[in-house]
């Protein structure tokens, strides 16, 4: 055989166009159709015999042949025999084969000259004609008439059968309508429409976010007067995203938009798209936008607001590769400083990106949209202009009329979220959400305005300076937190039997909100003094050294596991830190150990452990990552592991041991800074004892009061003038010495805390 395996001469199979005769058929292929028609014929014959017991076989055969099925089958059999004869000749006679092949090829080429659409319509006509004829023949057979008569009487037959048909349709309708009704019911809710004047909030009620408000006003103006931009060839931005930390006023801004705009405002509940069943979210989105289109046509525009947009606009943990790379890029920038990696080659940047990829955690949590809700929202937002409505799309098309294009729907989409990274990038592309505004923490001026406005609603005795001071010492306060603080201050005043809020009330409220309620437990006197001294050392170091931050509050009141603390407030927004500033921070941490050892004759408490760990970590990172040591080698976070530090603060560096050069330098630098801190505290020993006393008396004092005590002047809540008195300072030294003695020999009766001079004491008692 030509294709024998092992044969050296492989023969390719002949192509159809190269054949000289028709390809021979298998014997079964020749006879199968004839066999089929004969079997059907036999069945018809058998049916004739079976249905009439008196008909002889010969007459039955004659009748079978000359009834419609018999004639049809006979023709089929004849046709098939002729066809097989034709094939048989074509398989043997080359001339015959080529003759017919030419005829068929010419026929094919003539048919192919007809346009495909025309061929399709002809085929469709023939198909439907056959279907109609067969249906008519069957119907005619059932009712005993000719097929044509059956077609004519078909409407009458349908009408007669209508009661039964309608019953069936009704049952189907009932079965379907149950699901429709359930889904319709579940797809409702979560969407509120507010008409103009329903909302009383105005832009003037939003404080501290003027920059963002201006942009939003601009968007509103474009919505209400689109020609202003469209006449110049532009388009009205369709979407705004407000993102930022919680409480910064995003929802309030949206509420103000509702109050200011002359258009309907649709508020979408964040939970509206959390559904029990698959597909309900899709229905809700479609229903929402259907409503929006109607409102926009009726009122000339509409605004829709999605609060907590991450519940809807996120694909959950499935952050795209694109987004991961974007996040990684940001991580690189943050690691390497303000220029990021833009000054290195593409290869180096890719290598760095790969290294950072494991560090960057994709946006976890947020919403999830596995049921097509997000996709439906993206589709609705994409602005695809398509004809709508059954009459417009279907009826006009059937009549050969082009459907009308829909009008321009003026829909402004506003979204708010505090997790912008979890939003799908497709949602944030231009054309959907055109503008993205960060609603961050208010600036000092914004906080000042917010304080003024909220304080303006209550009775208070704060001066302008005090209000300004409040704004300055609240760097991360949001509108919501300021409102809460003022309200808490009012509660404190009412609790004290007053209806006028003082500066002290606000400070207390602020401390309460920021740091929580103290446990209320009292120290034993010895411990109270040591804790106060510990915190006083931090406070004095901070006061004397820090330039970029001030003291917010110093306290010795216990809050859970925290015995006391001194919390700083940055005076300005900074993004980079100098080496000298890092050293100051380290010295501030070291101050507790230095102070305890200095004042307790070399002894110190366990409480310095946390401070020392922080100091060590800060120093180590600055040496390893920011070239602030004697080495130029620098390590990034990837090389330091996920956090860069082990839980006990000791950095884990691949290939380097703790006992190595880095460890030596850390120890040396710490010792150097320790010495400097020691010199500082020794120089300002009196300040430490003064602040210690103030903490023991008041438990919690503000940064202003710390400064007043150190400077020996009257503070907002604490009169520090007594601490300027040399005699009082001597008493403080004696008190401290007694405390040390009590600590050393474990006296049962610790020393009494010195009382302030009479005038200051009266003021303290009266506060």
């Amino acid at each position, binding site marked *: 055989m030509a294709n024998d395996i092992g044969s050296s001469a492989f023969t390719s199979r002949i192509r159809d166009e190269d054949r000289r005769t028709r390809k021979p058929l298998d014997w079964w292929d020749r006879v199968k159709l004839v066999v089929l028609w004969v079997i059907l014929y036999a069945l018809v014959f058998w049916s004739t015999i079976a*249905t*009439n*017991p*008196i*008909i002889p076989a*010969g*007459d039955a*055969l*004659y*009748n079978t*042949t000359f009834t419609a099925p018999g004639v049809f089958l*006979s023709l089929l*059999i*004849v046709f098939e*025999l002729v066809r097989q004869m034709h094939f048989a000749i074509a398989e043997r006679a080359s001339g015959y084969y080529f003759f017919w092949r030419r005829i068929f090829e010419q026929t094919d080429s003539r048919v192919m000259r007809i346009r495909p659409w025309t061929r399709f319509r002809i085929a469709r006509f023939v198909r439907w004609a056959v279907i109609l004829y067969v249906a008519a023949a069957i119907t005619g057979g059932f009712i*005993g008439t000719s097929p044509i008569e059956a077609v004519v009487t078909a409407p009458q037959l349908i009408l007669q059968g209508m009661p039964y048909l309608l019953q069936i349709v009704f049952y189907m309708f009932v079965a379907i309508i149950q699901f429709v009704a359930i889904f319709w019911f579940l797809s409702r809710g979560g969407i509120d429409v507010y008409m103009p004047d329903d909302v009383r909030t105005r832009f003037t009620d939003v404080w501290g976010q003027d920059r963002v408000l201006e942009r939003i006003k601009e968007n509103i103006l474009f919505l209400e007067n689109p020609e202003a931009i469209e006449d110049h060839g532009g388009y009205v931005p369709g979407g705004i995203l407000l993102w930022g930390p919680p409480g910064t006023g995003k929802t309030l801004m949206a509420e103000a938009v509702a109050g200011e705009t002359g258009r309907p405002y649709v508020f979408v509940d964040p939970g509206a798209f959390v559904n029990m069943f698959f597909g309900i979210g899709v229905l809700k989105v479609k229903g929402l936008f259907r409503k929006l289109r109607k409102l926009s046509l009726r009122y000339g525009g509409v605004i829709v607001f999605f609060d907590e947009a991450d519940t809807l606009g996120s694909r959950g943990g499935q952050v795209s590769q694109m987004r991961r790379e974007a996040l990684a890029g940001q991580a690189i920038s943050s690691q390497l400083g303000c220029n990021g990696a833009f000054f290195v080659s593409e290869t180096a940047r890719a290598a760095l990106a790969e290294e950072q990829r494991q560090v960057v955690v994709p946006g976890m949590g947020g919403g999830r949209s596995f049921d097509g809700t997000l996709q439906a929202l993206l589709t609705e937002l994409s602005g695809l202009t398509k004809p709508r409505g059954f009459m417009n799309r279907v009826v006009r098309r059937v009549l050969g009329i082009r459907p009308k294009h829909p009008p321009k729907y003026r829909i402004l989409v506003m979204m708010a979220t505090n997790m912008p990274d979890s939003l799908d990038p497709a949602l944030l592309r231009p054309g959907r959400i055109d503008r993205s505004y960060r609603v961050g923490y208010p600036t000092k001026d914004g906080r000042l305005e917010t304080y003024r406005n909220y304080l303006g609603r209550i009775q208070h005795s704060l001066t302008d300076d005090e209000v300004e001071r409040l704004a300055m010492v609240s760097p991360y306060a949001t509108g919501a937190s300021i409102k809460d603080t003022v309200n808490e201050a009012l509660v404190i005043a009412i609790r004290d039997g007053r209806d006028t809020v003082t500066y002290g009330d606000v400070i207390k409220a602020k401390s309460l909100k920021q740091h929580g309620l103290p446990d209320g437990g009292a120290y034993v006197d010895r411990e109270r003094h040591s804790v106060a001294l510990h915190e006083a050392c931090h406070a004095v170091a901070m006061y004397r050294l820090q330039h970029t931050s001030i003291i917010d509050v110093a306290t010795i009141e216990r809050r859970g596991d925290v015995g006391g603390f001194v919390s700083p407030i940055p005076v300005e927004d900074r993004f980079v830190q100098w080496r000298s500033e890092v050293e100051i921070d380290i010295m501030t941490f070291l101050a507790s150990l230095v102070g305890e050892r200095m004042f307790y004759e070399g002894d110190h408490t366990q409480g310095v452990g946390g401070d020392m760990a922080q100091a060590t970590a800060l120093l180590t990172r600055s040496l390893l990552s920011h070239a602030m040591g004697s080495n130029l080698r620098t390590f990034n976070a990837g090389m330091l592991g996920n956090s860069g530090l082990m839980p006990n603060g000791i950095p884990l560096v691949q290939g380097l041991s703790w006992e190595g050069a880095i460890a030596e330098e850390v120890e040396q630098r710490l010792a150097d800074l320790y010495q400097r801190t020691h010199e500082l505290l020794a120089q300002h020993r009196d300040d430490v004892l003064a602040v210690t006393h103030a903490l023991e008396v008041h438990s919690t004092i503000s940064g202003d009061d710390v400064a007043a005590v150190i400077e020996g002047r009257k503070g907002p809540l604490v009169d520090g003038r007594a601490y300027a008195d040399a005699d009082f300072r001597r008493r403080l030294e004696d008190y401290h010495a007694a405390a040390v003695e009590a600590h050393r020999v474990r006296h049962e009766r610790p020393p009494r805390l010195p009382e302030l001079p009479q005038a200051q004491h009266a003021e303290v008692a009266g506060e």
Partner: protein
Amino acid sequence: MLAATLLLSGCSAPAHQYIAANGDGMYFALPASWTQVPMKQLVKAQQGWTDDAGNVFRQTVRWQGVWSAHTIDADRAFAARPASAPVVFAYVRDLVGVEQQGIGKDVKAALRDVLIPASSLPSGSVLTQTWTRSGFTGIHQTGTYVSGGAMQTTEVVSTLPPARNRLYVFAMRCSESCYSAYGRDINAVFESLTFKEPRG
């Protein structure tokens, strides 16, 4: 195939046409040349049967047909005066409750006047014999009497199935002279008459 079929069938069309009321189990063979009166004509003609018997018939008939050796219309087929060619009238109808109860044991008496008014004709005009075939019991009547001014011969087989819930009637009628002329055909027709108890 056609040639083979024609060969098998003796190269000629069948001499008979085979009538079957398949749902009711009545079968007979008629000469192929005899023609059937169109059903519409038949039904329309029966609309004129306004007496009680006619009303009952129209309400209970299940299957019926009228054939004749010559082409005639329904009115002529049911006219009092006999036609000059044999007319066959065959039908199957349901028996209403009263009728079923009235049959009793004497089937002959019950079916005596189904088509031929035997009771009212002179004695000897009608010959009635019991007819039994395939479980069906009934009578075979042959009556010669004047109708519409002419002498006619009517031969009828009226029979009941075992369940006695239906009435099967096969009647042949024509003038006395034509009955003789078509005697062989008429005998063959009656020979072919077959009943099978229907299912259900």
